[in-house]
């Protein structure tokens, strides 16, 4: 697949990435990719 098959979408929500070590990152309205879910070809 190539980048022609994907684009980005802004979601209404947030991502929280946190650890037991105390790190915490909140990303408001994160961007995600919209992609084809056909079985991926392995990279040659």
């Amino acid at each position, binding site marked *: 697949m190539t980048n022609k098959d994907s684009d980005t979408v802004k*979601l209404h929500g947030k991502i929280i990435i946190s650890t037991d070590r105390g790190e915490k990152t909140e990303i408001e309205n994160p961007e995600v990719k919209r992609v084809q879910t056909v079985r991926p070809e392995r990279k040659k």
Partner: protein
Amino acid sequence: MRELPFVASAVGIGRRDYSSAIEYASQPTVRGFQGRNNWALDADNVPTLPFGVAYSMAIGFYTRDGTLVYEAPSDVINHIYYVGAASGRKALVNVGLYYFASLADYYAWIVEGYHGWVSGYGLAELRYTTGIPTLAGRTYAIMFGEYSLEPLFDIRITANALEEEVVL
């Protein structure tokens, strides 16, 4: 630990019994921290996609000094053991865990491989008993989607990994 000599005395006939005098002691050695890395995505009113199309979210990792990176760090291995996606209703939900050789490959959508792709109704979960260890330099992404006749859906994604510090 100093080894104590022991003597297995000969009793009767046959092989000597060495088991009677064996003492075994072990002490754990602390090599580095082991903690947990948690990802949570809460998103509402996400446009429903046609079947065969999904959303993809690259997951971030923390290095030993706490920097958030999108290529798996070399000083902390994340053993990903759970990825779950839940929507608020009984509709088909898909979730997958994919990996890419680098972040540039993720942006260009050159998939290197995947660890799983699973479907469920209302909830789809990937569970790995011993965890999938991240390989330094790779980018990992969670793919998800809900498929129904409704135009919008809400999604809650949770993923967890055990962090293991690499002793250099």
